[in-house]
């Protein structure tokens, strides 16, 4: 057992913190400057090999593993950075889990270098989590397929070069994944406005052609998908932990500098106890997230990590709004962005109740 990061990992973490403070500071949030800052950040993330972290160099990546990737997610969470990097990395993880060797050597270097980006089109109105209820179908069409269905709130779909679309294969009912170009005939993308401003779109597929090479892997991909989803869930928990750390800092910063009745409001015991409660929840959520990231079987650990991080972050944003009062409620304060993120990531990949049920199953219940 060893709960520390290597000096190289600490160095990576510090580099990222500086980079984000420079390119995507809190001051740009909710201002006209935000889109330009997002573009500059994206240029850095694609241009300097950050998209290749977690992919071996022989597959076109930058090396590093789950821990390095988790460090990046944590810092993106701290900065409430745009979801674009996250969407691209999660799509890449799914490709890597599913694809055959020949597909891997074709797709992975392109994704790792940022020459193209992808996003996962999985959730539907009636099937957010459980693959059994997937309604999008893939019908045989000669040697290839035709996809029909509707995907709801696909992240970063309008900027991705291609989508990884989940569908039920005709005849055998296998869960199958297809690489579909954004410009493919029959594919329509409608941007939706969600309350946390990240770009999400509804995607309708009407007889979208996909040749046999577009199917990633073969056979039923349910088990592979669920394993990928555990990894994505663990990384999401770490991203939420990053946000939680920042919310805690905002809270402490405010109550240390703000005076009322002639003393810092942080000297009042009720306020101190709010700050202590967030520290306690953070300690548990951070440990659980790290455990989920490094576990071999990520099922139960990722469920625990995401549930713990979600509970802690939602509660922390409420307490932070409370102690920051009006100053934390203006759009000049970054706090509302964390509160929006808290609920967004709580829901995506399954919320508190869904994760608890996974824990219940792991207990043998």
């Amino acid at each position, binding site marked *: 057992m060893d709960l520390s990061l290597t000096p190289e990992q600490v160095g990576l973490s510090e580099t990222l913190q500086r980079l984000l403070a420079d390119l995507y500071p809190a001051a740009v949030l909710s201002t006209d400057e935000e889109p330009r800052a997002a573009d500059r950040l994206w240029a850095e993330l694609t241009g300097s090999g950050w998209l290749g972290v977690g992919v071996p160099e022989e597959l076109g990546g930058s090396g590093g593993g789950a821990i390095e990737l988790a460090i990046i997610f944590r810092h993106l969470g701290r900065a409430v950075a745009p979801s674009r990097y996250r969407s691209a990395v999660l799509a890449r993880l799914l490709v890597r889990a599913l694809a055959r060797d020949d597909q891997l050597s074709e797709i992975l270097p392109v994704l790792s270098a940022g020459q193209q980006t992808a996003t996962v089109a999985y959730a539907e109105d009636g099937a957010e989590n459980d693959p059994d209820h997937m309604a999008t179908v893939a019908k045989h069409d000669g040697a290839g397929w035709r996809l029909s269905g509707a995907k709801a709130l696909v992240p970063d779909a309008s900027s991705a070069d291609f989508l990884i679309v989940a569908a039920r294969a005709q005849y055998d009912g296998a869960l199958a994944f297809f690489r579909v170009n954004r410009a493919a005939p029959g594919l329509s993308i409608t941007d939706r406005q969600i309350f946390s401003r990240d770009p999400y779109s509804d995607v309708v597929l009407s007889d979208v052609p996909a040749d046999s090479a577009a199917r990633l892997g073969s056979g039923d991909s349910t088990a592979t998908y669920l394993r990928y989803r555990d990894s994505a869930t663990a990384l999401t928990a770490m991203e939420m932990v990053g946000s939680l750390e920042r919310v805690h800092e905002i809270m402490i910063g405010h109550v240390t500098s703000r005076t009322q009745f002639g003393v810092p409001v942080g000297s009042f015991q009720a306020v101190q*106890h709010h700050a*202590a409660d967030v*520290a306690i929840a953070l300690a*548990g959520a951070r440990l659980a997230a790290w455990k989920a990231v490094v576990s071999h079987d990520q099922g139960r650990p990722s469920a625990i990590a995401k549930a713990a991080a979600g509970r802690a972050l939602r509660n922390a944003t409420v307490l932070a709004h409370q102690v920051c009062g009006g100053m934390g409620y203006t759009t000049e304060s970054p706090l509302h962005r964390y509160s929006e993120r808290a609920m967004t990531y709580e829901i995506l990949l399954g919320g508190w109740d869904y994760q608890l049920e996974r*824990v*219940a199953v792991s*207990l043998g*219940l």
Partner: protein
Amino acid sequence: MKFELSDQQQEWQAEVRDFLRHHLTDAVRAEVIAWHGHGHGPRTRDFYKAVADRNWTALTWPASCGGMERGAIDQFILAEEFEYAGAPRVEMTWTSLAPLLIRYGTDANRALWLEDIRSGDILFALGYSESEAGTDLASLRTTARRDGDEWVIDGEKTWNTGAHFATHEWLAVRTNAEARRHRGISLIVVPIGAPGVQTYPILTWSGVRTSRVVFTNVRVPADNLVGEVDRGWAYITGALDFERATIGGHVGSLRRLVDGLVQYAGEQKRDGRLLRDDPAVRSGLAELALDVELAGLMGLEVADAIDRGQIPTLPGTVQKVFTTELRTKVADVGMRLLGQTALLSEAEPDAPLGGFLEWTYRWAPVQRFGGGTNEVMRDIIAQRGLGLPRAARGQGR
């Protein structure tokens, strides 16, 4: 970053489990339940003898003091396995007070007590609190006055758990009336059989007996004063940083409760269905399991910090608050999930979980205010951990 136990740690865990299989008989377990682990019946004494024979009483001590020089993670594993199995408690005389003697004590202190602690012949009862000095420990009034080669002790201690079976009192006393509050306190060891020591029982809701102990003109040799005179406060707070981790760190028993509840839910029917098929039971038990996992991770983090040579003030205090409040939650949620059978007293042979759940409901409150109230713990987290300004308090002295 690695959460699995190392090969060496896994071997150690297996060795502890093997020991428990041989020495933790049903008779010992029954005695532990009867005494609630807060006393030493004859079978418990035999069990402790076996622990001492393996030198596990001195697990983390340096070799120069007869110890095994093992790390805090190994100590954590030992305590967790003992607790999960329902063994007699790992005594804090071994894990907290002896290390304090090793670190701060005089050569004479060590020569007097260490070997007998290691063999299990000496056990201390902690005499800190007084009726007017609880959370505000520095206002304590029991005095020790130097008289030639002896210290003379007068005063009264309360919540002195273990006084009726320990061999010695481990007292915090005022040795300097002139010095301000914290600066005039020393630690001193008093044999419980010494003339002038009188013990009066205090019975508590959990069934655990504690004591009020009165000291009248009690004389002990000068060498019984721990370390240096008037330095006791630093020793106490130093040890408390570690002790809180121990008080909070009873995760083994929480794990046992959750495992017991899960098993029960798979066997017991209510209103026509197995408890485990009730969605409320499923989510309730899953939430407990989740929180117990977090508590266990916090415990490992504390042990990891100690093994790195850090003083675990923040993680230890965080863990104390979280785990003690979780104990309340486990008892509360667990009893509600079980329904009316949960009301059966531990005196009933068929009480669910052997009555351990209802006993936990009664025992949980003391964990939250003992070893420093959780309110003060939150002050410490905020002020020492997060750097918030000191809150206004009364004047004290």
